């Protein structure tokens, strides 16, 4: 009720208000491709955002591949130095370093995949934020 009264009072404009309105009035500006330019810019930004994650993952994977491979190779060599009694776990439970998938040893493959998945999750979270 109160807000209705306020709105009515607001609508009751005096001559001065009407004069000011006419002074402030401006010719409408023609669009002239203005909206299309902005929409094109927004579309470009959407594409860049969509491409950012896969490109980042690809670049990250390429950059990380060599060091990760070296790390895994060194750690698997070190694994051979560890005394047998520390490693008395059934062989079937541990991933077999010797087995080969897509021409790559299994262990580096698992580590690399885990890193890519982690990068993906982090990237998605960053994009969402």
């Amino acid at each position: 009720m109160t807000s209705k009264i306020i709105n009515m009072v607001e609508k009751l404009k005096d001559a001065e208000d009407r004069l000011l309105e006419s002074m402030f009035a401006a010719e409408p500006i023609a669009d002239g491709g203005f909206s299309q330019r902005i929409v094109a810019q927004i579309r470009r930004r959407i594409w860049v955002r969509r491409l950012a994650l896969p490109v980042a993952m690809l670049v990250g994977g390429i950059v990380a591949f060599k060091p990760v491979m070296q790390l895994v190779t060194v750690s698997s060599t070190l694994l051979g130095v560890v005394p047998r009694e520390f490693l008395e776990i059934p062989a079937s439970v541990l991933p077999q370093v010797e087995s080969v998938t897509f021409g790559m040893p299994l262990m580096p493959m698992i580590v690399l995949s885990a890193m890519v998945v982690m990068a993906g999750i982090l990237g998605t979270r960053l994009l969402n934020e």
Partner: protein
Amino acid sequence: MACDGAWQIIQTATLLEVEDQSLVTLAVASQDTAAYGELIRRHQSQVRNFLRKLAGGSTEDADDLAQECFLHAWDKLQTFSGRGSFIGWLLKVAYTTFLQSKRKSKRYSEVLNEVGYVAEQQSRSYTQDTNEVSDLDKLLAVLTEEERAIMVMSYACGLSHREIGDATGLPVGTVKSIIFRGKDKIRTNFDIKDHKHG
């Protein structure tokens, strides 16, 4: 190809009949740039006029600001609650964009001053920016930036006091008193009965 064109015509024709709120929902829910394009087309004139009056400088600068404003608005579109009018919300974004750009240029000129660069008169008055000074320019020049923004929102864009309050983050009472003060300044400085249109 022809089918795509026909679909686009149908889509555009449909969008013309849709209300602002539905277009916003469409744009937010499915990242529909066509819906947002229609919103820009509907409100670009008011936003550009608002920024031209507020900035007072070249129309190109004001249009750049308007473009920036619509890009910000796209990023923040999900924050539009639908409580007020869309143009009110859009002018709020435009006003924030204007204040941010002003702050940035001020910081930039401060840095230039610090390194001893004599910048060209950037703090020139509102009316000196244009060669042809209209009555409206003279009128706006006596107002402070805040008063100018509020007066333009009220008299040029036709926003209610509440909408102006939402846009500027000021209480309705303060908005009313700023309008009153602005009118008083104009009354003191000009005989507004003998005006020519701005």
